[in-house]
């Protein structure tokens, strides 16, 4: 069971094998996606025809590589701007929320905290449709009563950003609150005693302390937005973010250019993941 309890070699062997198999299972789908991005074939499947870089560098159909596929490159750009917008909005609100829940006591705090957590248990598709119908209701109301045509309340990128922001904020709030909770109040008190204003204290002491958590939350937020599918699917207009563009191609059946995009995504996520691990490594504790 645990190392200090004697157990048979047989048991330990089986247990270790199970864990190894589990990790093989985890890695296998990603490994095949990566390997087949180098397959010299028009389909991401067997047989293996030898290696090629066409799916990255190919310049014309049918072997159009990702670096020349304007449609996919455009959708990466769309996803990037959406993710940036979601990250900025979520981080601002999440930082406010963290201060509110960690530093203030007020009537109904427990209830509001619970409400703040509910986006975690609302399926993404439903959050998407509820925001879709609510914004359409507002848009219809404004149009019927005041003759106002408000484009961004109709399906499209602004709505995608708002829809993702609606639930990603909760996750950012949890990350930032967790760090603010461990903050040593005496640092702020010392600064206050030395005559600093409250705003100056927050700016020069509390926010720098929170920086690793804010950067970490920012990376998680960015990735969650970049990879979001369910909520985006319901709110998307004519400009497709990457996940939607890839989904459409997958259903049509596509060349291994999708594998090449996936490899780029893996590399990008890995870099961001490493940065977040590095940033959040506590040096000051």
């Amino acid at each position, binding site marked *: *069971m*645990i*190392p*200090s*309890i004697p157990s048979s070699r047989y048991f330990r062997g089986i*247990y270790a094998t*199970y*864990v190894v198999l*589990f*990790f093989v299972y*985890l890695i296998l*789908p*990603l490994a*095949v*996606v990566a390997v087949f991005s180098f397959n010299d074939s028009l389909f*991401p*499947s*067997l*047989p293996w025809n030898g290696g090629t870089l066409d799916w990255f560098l190919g310049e014309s159909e049918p072997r159009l590589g990702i670096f020349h596929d304007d449609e996919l490159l455009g959708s990466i750009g769309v996803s990037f701007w959406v993710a940036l917008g979601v990250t900025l909005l979520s981080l601002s609100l999440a930082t*406010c929320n963290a201060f*509110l829940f960690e*530093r203030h*006591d*007020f009537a109904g705090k*427990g209830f*509001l*905290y619970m*409400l703040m*957590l509910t986006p*975690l*248990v609302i*399926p993404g*598709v*439903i*959050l998407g*449709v*509820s925001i879709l*119908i*609510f914004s359409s209701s507002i848009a219809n109301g404004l149009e019927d009563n005041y003759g106002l045509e408000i484009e961004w309340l109709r399906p499209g990128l602004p709505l995608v950003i708002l829809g993702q922001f*609606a639930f990603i904020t909760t996750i950012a709030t*949890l990350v930032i609150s967790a760090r603010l909770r461990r903050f040593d*109040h005496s640092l702020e*008190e010392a600064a*206050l005693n030395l005559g600093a204003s*409250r705003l100056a204290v927050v700016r020069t002491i509390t926010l720098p302390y929170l920086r690793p958590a804010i950067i970490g939350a920012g990376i998680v937020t960015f990735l969650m937005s*970049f990879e979001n*599918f*369910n909520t985006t*699917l*319901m709110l998307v207009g004519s400009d497709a973010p990457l*996940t939607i563009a*890839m*989904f459409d191609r*997958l*259903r049509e059946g596509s060349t291994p250019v*999708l*594998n090449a995009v*996936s490899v780029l995504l*893996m590399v990008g996520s890995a870099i961001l*993941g490493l940065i977040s691990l590095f940033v959040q490594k506590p040096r000051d504790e």
Partner: protein
Amino acid sequence: MSAVTGLSFRDSGKLGLLLLISPLLLWLSLFILLPHVDLVMISLRERVAAREYAFSWSNYTAFFTEPLYWRTFMRTAVMSILATALTLLIAFPVAFYIAKMVRGRFKALLFVLCLIPFWVSELVRTYGWMILLRETGIFSGLLQWLGWVDQPVEMLYNDVAIMVGLVYTSMLFMVVPLVTTLEGLDDSLIEAAYDLGGSHFRVIWDVVIPHAMPGIVSGCIVVFMLTLGNYLTPTLLGGKDSLWFTEQIYTQFITRFNWEQGSAFGMLLLILSSFIVWAGLKLSRQSFTRVMT
């Protein structure tokens, strides 16, 4: 402690509280509460003429009278429960291994290794399973190479493929809470249980599992919720006949443009997921706030 902090930020005034609480209230009301109120309202109306609506239960009665709808609903619920149970069964030994059997750097490495696949988009992971399972895919090729079958086997587009994909996608959300709670279990408790003559089974059942309960519950709730609301995996791995309830919602909203029916479906799915979350918390006597944070 509270007396000292009382001097600093605790009472930074009504204004500070107001400034911090208004964005929260705006967010919760505009993006969470009002949209769902609207969802309920629209699900309870029926178009009687162009741009004219009347109160009606018809969208809900349609659900119960059309077998395809409620069968899809029940199928989604049952398969989600099954996927959650399978994820727990597969993840628990691994989580225990990481939490208790290994130490130091190796432990950190294994833990990070568990996280890595989930930094990558669900779309990519599902795509990987498609390449593995399809007729011209790896498993089919492997079986032919081994000589176990003489022609390509299609392993995609069936319920097992959906289940494999769902369990895979959910794994992280089970392993992380389990490792976190199991790490809090003191080794000496397990040792004491053995010293007192407990069998492997008794020790796991009476000591390890009760301790891990908060992690089990939060893992199961999140996994169930994500599975129930999943769209991508059933659609891509299950093909045309995957019959997942989120597809019904999508069809009503986007293909048929019947928002009234779609809203009713959305409400039903939301009620089901809330009920399961509530039941899970009640059965395990956990609080929502504690489980989610």
